[in-house]
């Protein structure tokens, strides 16, 4: 009898705890937007490893790709730039806003405020992401948003790396990159070069630093 009660209690606890976490996740899910963005139209020159092609600009307030000056972040292949600071070379779009970025370690729900001291802008010698926070480093030294596998030649976004943005007009947003390929089973051998971003983000339109 005792065992039966214990079992009931246990299953009740298990049931309620599962229930709770999934509700949390569903709520959270509705809070964030998932975006799929194609920034795969680039070419990599093997000789000097320089990429060419168009940057795909994204605006958090619009929640979509934009072609005007009011963008916050732009993507091309593995490169991310922000609309703030200076451009590193001439094939990049000019910076017209005040955007900045840093990478925080945590889950989307854990990163609930912006550390404004960590924000950095792009500069003439490279994007903020490249020289300082090393988003472009692809995480080999453990700092970036993705890692690169020498055996499979695939880039994988690293879980728990949240990109925290100040937008071009001084609002805030947080973003987590989920996928880099348009297939769940990418194969670089058959020409999957990536650049297909799937990310979710939360935009704070009031300009508060808390999400």
């Amino acid at each position, binding site marked *: 009898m005792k065992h039966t009660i214990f079992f009931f209690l246990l299953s009740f606890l298990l049931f309620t705890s599962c229930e709770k976490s999934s509700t949390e996740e569903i709520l959270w899910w509705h809070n964030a937007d998932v975006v799929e963005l194609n920034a795969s139209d680039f070419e990599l020159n093997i000789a000097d490893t320089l990429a060419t092609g168009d940057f795909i600009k994204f605006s958090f307030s619009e929640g979509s790709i934009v072609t005007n000056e009011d963008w916050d972040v732009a993507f091309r292949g593995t490169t991310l730039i922000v609309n703030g600071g200076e451009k590193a070379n001439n094939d990049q779009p000019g910076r017209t806003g005040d955007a900045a970025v840093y990478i925080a370690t945590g889950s989307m729900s854990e990163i609930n405020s912006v550390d404004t001291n960590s924000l950095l802008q792009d500069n003439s010698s490279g994007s903020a992401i490249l020289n300082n926070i090393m988003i472009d480093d692809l995480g080999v030294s453990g700092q970036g948003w993705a890692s690169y596998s020498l055996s499979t030649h695939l880039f*994988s976004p690293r879980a728990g790396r949240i990109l925290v943005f100040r937008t071009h007009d001084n609002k805030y947003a947080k973003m987590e990159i989920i996928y880099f390929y348009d297939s769940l089973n990418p194969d670089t051998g058959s020409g999957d070069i990536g650049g297909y971003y799937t990310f979710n983000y939360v935009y704070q339109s009031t300009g508060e630093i808390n999400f």
Partner: protein
Amino acid sequence: MLLTYFSFSQNQKEAIVFDRKLEEVTISATKTAKSIAKLPIPVMIISEKEIEEFGSSKLFDVIKRQTGIVSVTTKTGTEGLQMQGLDASYTTILLDGFPIIGRSFGALDLNRIALVDVEKIEVIKGASSSLYGSNALGGVINLVSKKKLIDGKSTTFSLKHATHNTTNASLIYQYKKEHLQLSNSFDYYNSDGYDLIDSDKLSTVNPYSNYTISSNLKYGISDKILLNTNARYYKQEQVYTAEHLNSLLKGKSNIEEWSLGSSLKYLMSSNFNQQIDVYKTNYRADEFLNTEEGILHDNNYFDHILLQSELKSYFTYKGLNTVIGFGMTKEELSRRDFSNNPKQDLKFLYGQLDATAFDKLNIILGSRYDSYTDYTPVISNKLALGIPITKKLNINSSVGSGFKTPDFRQKYFDFTNSTIGYTVLGRDVAFDRLATMQAEGMIQEIVPFSELISPLKSETSINLNLGIKYYPTHNLTFDVNLFNNKVNDLIEWQLVAKGVNNTNIYSYFNINQVETKGLEFNASYKKTNNLEIKFGYQLLYAYDTEVVKDIEKDDSDYYALNTETLTSVRLNKEDYFGLFNRSRHMGNIKLNYNLNDKTELNTILTYRSKYALSDSNGNEILDTYDKFVVGYSLCDVAITHQINSLKSCQIGVKNIFGFTNPEFISNITGRLYYMSFKVNFK
């Protein structure tokens, strides 16, 4: 997919009927002949009968069916083996005590080793560096060549045909007259290979053919002096293809290997022997790729040579067996992408004591000293205790240390991949190369270069075994062994600098520490002389100790993507699965049934639980959110029929369920049929 097989000789049949366990004698475990029932360290013997049961003609085919041995495919496609959860590069493979070389990426390809002249295979699990030096962290596999005990000559020819247009022909000629024993063998193997993925231009395994010639001469020069000479030659040719910018590159990949070993044994008195060994071996691999227009696109070579000489002295007195040996090894490697042709010299000295104390207790105590030209000397030890509780119950315990020196690649590699844009530098060349690059101003330091001045340390390990052998009746056996291995200073590559255009430059460091622990269980039951059932199981936990420490912290940096909610979650200890390519469970059930005097049925079912080959969610560890290779079972069936005393035939099916997993498992080909015929000319 392989096979050769021989009729059971009268001697063997008697041995089997008599008492299998007590008859199994191992040489490699202690370097002296010793019954495995009495040996206090985990040892497994694969008999000639077992080799023949499923018509195996190459070592890999036999070894992958054994409990606690997992066949793994390395990144380069080489098939290696894992023992006690340790990597394929940690097993030493010997042929009559002489090492087989040719490990271009750590693992040795066991499909290279033909079994036509092999009488039995001895497998020692656990660190054995105290006898065999570097590399023997996980264990040792020794192949013992055939002996002929009765005067006369015998020729055996066998022919096998299998799926994938595989043909295997082998011939062995044995001769014995008084003090002279000669055994010559030839093995030819040809296969069309196979393709598991139709959508691409490449085949999974390209057509290949190989042959092995081996010769063994034993000659008693006098009553006291014995000469033993082994010679072996192996050659393989295989079609080599690759895809490059949507065009197909074609070429060839060749392997050529030879070895020559000679030992002279002097039986000074009934309790004192001496043996001198000289051995030389060479492994050379060449490959090239041409474009569709026939222009050379890429070529590569690997040429390794080893020379070893050793003097051993055996001393026996009452319950005490002693062996003392010393010797030297010279090695040289030339290979593309190496800064020079590295050489390495080794001098070694070892001793082992095998004693019986208080009439019962068996103690083995061994120690070995290895002195390499470039390293601080290494001392490896082993202590084993065998405690017979009753006649039927034995408790065994052993502790041993193992080591592996950094290989030539980790020291001298100088490789740049211009397609991806990265460079890998061996530790011994890294500092100078980086200093030059830095002086030219094209480099950004990530790890202080001063850390690269000191040479790499050897990887070291401690191995513990605790086993119980329980043989309640003459036809029932139980063996349990608990094991634990801690490997320190694992060598891995790490980013050291950023070169021009942000390219990554890597070098090698002693970083990781891993632990494997688990249990191996084997049981056998012989119901009648006609029916025998065997069961084997291994439970394994293998993990990186640093990851375990980190993940237990509240602020751990390990996250994973939950693919259902598309959000990251922080991982806890339970989410960490462990090292890559390790299955928690593996097991096998084997049935041997004699339908009548002449016909025998063998079947084996092997199981391997889920595992993963690499991280799929970017956190560099294997966690429960990763994509796993699902567990699988394979079943082989074979029927052997003795036509008369000189002729026999066998038919069989491998992988009868036809299991394949093209995405992750390239060495399982689906259902394979084979038939073979064997004839003996007296």
